[in-house]
């Protein structure tokens, strides 16, 4: 056991030293602290949002809408995690770490590692985990600094934000595992990087397609319900007017309307089947692929209260005195809200479990290549 700990510690310590030697690590860390410094400048009060103490006029977000604590949580999740750690920093991390596995398995370096009393599978998996140190350290420093800055500004110490560290690391690992697979397979840094970016692209496209087909499906469902009500109402009207002895022309007009509405309903129902088919296809694809966006969104689900999350879904039309925001009509907004509720109700198991299965399969494949190869 001591030997295992010694070897694992050595690989992790070496990974840390390797990061220390990479300029990209320090550049990324510097930008992280810059983003946190920006957090320190942004605040919220009853009049709106303030930057460096100056309130920006015309922004309808104030403490009447969100509490100061929730505002900072939102800022951390949306700007810090989704934009910075989840996009820009991830690209820097992928560029920086894509060479780790190809360098590790390159001729001249790998022989000395394999000739040690450590199994190949353990060696590879430990090296893989150590490669995640880049993102883990970035996320830890960023989150800890954010908590300090937000705490100093608002007086609330949001320790729950630390959950962002494992979630961001997990999110990165979904993409990085493919980089590791291609790296060990081809020994090419460029191929490893391109494969990771390609996977990320596929995940994004499938995610957008799934959301779009879900919206299509939900929109049709909503409309079908409306159409069904309309058909029922017309049928009721025909019954009533027949009983009241309405003239034949009037009844004919109503029956024509009913026929048209029933035809529309049938058309919508057929279209719904198509929407369901395509959405099911996209959903299946999404289930197989890792859930990058959903993993990041778990953070907000974990740190925000139910009431705060409900507030995000509030329909401005339902609230007296509130201005209608955006260009969507009430029906579209209802559809969007419904879609968001469906997405939010997806279980943590579905988000993390299926992503973990994807990663395990990829790592098993990469480990097999590493274990079987003659170097």
């Amino acid at each position: 056991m001591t030997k295992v700990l010694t070897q694992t510690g050595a690989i992790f310590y070496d990974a840390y030293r390797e990061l220390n030697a990479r300029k990209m690590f320090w550049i990324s860390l510097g930008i992280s602290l810059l983003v946190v410094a920006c957090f320190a400048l942004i605040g919220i009060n009853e009049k709106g949002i303030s930057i460096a103490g100056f309130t920006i006029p015309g922004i309808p977000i104030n403490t009447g809408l969100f509490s100061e604590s929730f505002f900072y949580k939102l800022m951390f999740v949306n700007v810090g995690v989704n934009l910075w750690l989840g996009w820009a920093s991830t690209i820097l991390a992928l560029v920086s770490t894509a060479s780790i596995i190809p360098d590790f398995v390159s001729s001249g370096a790998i022989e000395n590692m394999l000739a040690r009393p450590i199994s190949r599978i353990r060696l590879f998996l430990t090296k893989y985990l150590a490669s995640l140190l880049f993102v883990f350290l970035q996320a830890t420093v960023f989150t800890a600094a954010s908590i300090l800055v937000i705490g100093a500004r608002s007086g609330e110490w949001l320790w729950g934000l630390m959950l962002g560290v494992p979630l961001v690391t997990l999110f990165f690992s979904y993409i990085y595992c493919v980089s590791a697979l291609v790296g060990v397979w081809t020994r090419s840094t460029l191929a490893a990087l391109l494969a990771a970016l390609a996977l990320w692209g596929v995940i994004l496209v499938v995610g957008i397609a799934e959301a779009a087909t879900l919206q299509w499906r939900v929109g049709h469902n909503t409309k079908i319900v409306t159409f069904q009500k309309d058909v029922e109402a017309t049928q009721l009207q025909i019954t009533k007017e027949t009983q009241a002895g309405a003239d034949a022309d009037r009844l004919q007009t109503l029956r024509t309307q009913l026929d048209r509405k029933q035809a529309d309903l049938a058309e919508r129902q057929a279209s719904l089947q198509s929407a369901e088919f395509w959405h099911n296809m996209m959903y299946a694809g999404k289930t197989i692929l890792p859930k990058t966006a959903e993993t990041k969104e778990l953070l907000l689900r974990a740190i925000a209260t139910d009431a705060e999350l409900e507030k995000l879904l509030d329909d401005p039309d339902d609230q007296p005195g509130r201005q209608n925001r955006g260009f969507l009509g009430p029906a579209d907004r209802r559809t969007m809200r419904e879609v968001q509720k469906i997405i939010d109700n997806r279980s943590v198991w579905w988000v993390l479990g299926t992503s973990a299965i994807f990663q395990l399969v990829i790592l098993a494949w990469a480990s097999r290549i590493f274990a079987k190869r003659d170097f």
Partner: protein
Amino acid sequence: MPTASDLAVDVYDAVKTYRSMRNTIHALRGVSITVRRGEVFGLLGPNGAGKSTLVKILMTVITPTSCQGTMLGKPIGDKPTLAKVGYLPEHHRFPDYLTAKQVLHFFGAMSGVDRATRRKRAPMLLDMVGLSNAGNRTVRQFSKGMRQRLGLAQAMINDPDMLLLDEPTDGVDPEGRRDIRNLLANLRAAGKGILINTHILAELELLCDRAAIIHSGELHKQGTIAELTTFNAAYEIEARPTAATPAPSAEALTADLAHLAGAQLQITTKPTGEVLIRWATTDPADIQPIIDRLRAAAWQVTRVYPYRATLEDAFIKVIEQAKAQENAKRHTPAHSTPTAGGQP
């Protein structure tokens, strides 16, 4: 006959075949060698002979197609055994962001050596390989020779019972080579088994107790250096006619000695009038009558010395024989298997 416990490496019938859609490459075709504890064993062969493949099989870097035997008493491929084996790969590359001390600590830890032992051994080893003043310098600042010395130090960080060194003096200056030879001699004296894979035959000859010659994945000869180089053993005598007394001409002397020793004798007359007499024997008693005859004929014996073929002579002879055999096989219609050594 050495017992099993005397053997650091006892590998037999090591086979490595690379198969692809296009061809089959036989890197090793049933090689068997033994390395005893407390001896330096040399592995010789041209490029692509399969030397590195054999070493890599022992170090689990390559999986053999088939291989029997043991290393330090455990089956070949046993990972825990590697904790007591030191390895210096050919063309090794250490992370260039590490200092020499960090390299030793890292690879020591990978071999399962505890921190206290590493702290004790690292400065000692750096001193041993002549890098005591470079312990805190990063590898990227090292010359090739320094890297090689560092490689040797890392191979010893786990105080191994067996060392496998692939081209250990590659890029090292003459002084460094001498240091390495002395170091290996000390390790041998301490009872370590050492397997060296090198192209520099003169160095092996100075250091090795036994050696094996491999060509195209086949073992062609294995034995002590004396055994490998006895094929051309002889005594050589140089003599010249004395000026004071009349002496028979070289031609007459040649005819006289040929009569005495027969076909085993080769006599060469130099332009200076001296003769070089070469008799294929290892027994000094055989040459006494010739010396007597020379003196009786008023020739002055200026030099008598035993001649032994060098390891390079032995190597070239074995390789030429192997190539001749291969050519003969190639021209035999029944033969169709392609032959090639080394890794693809």
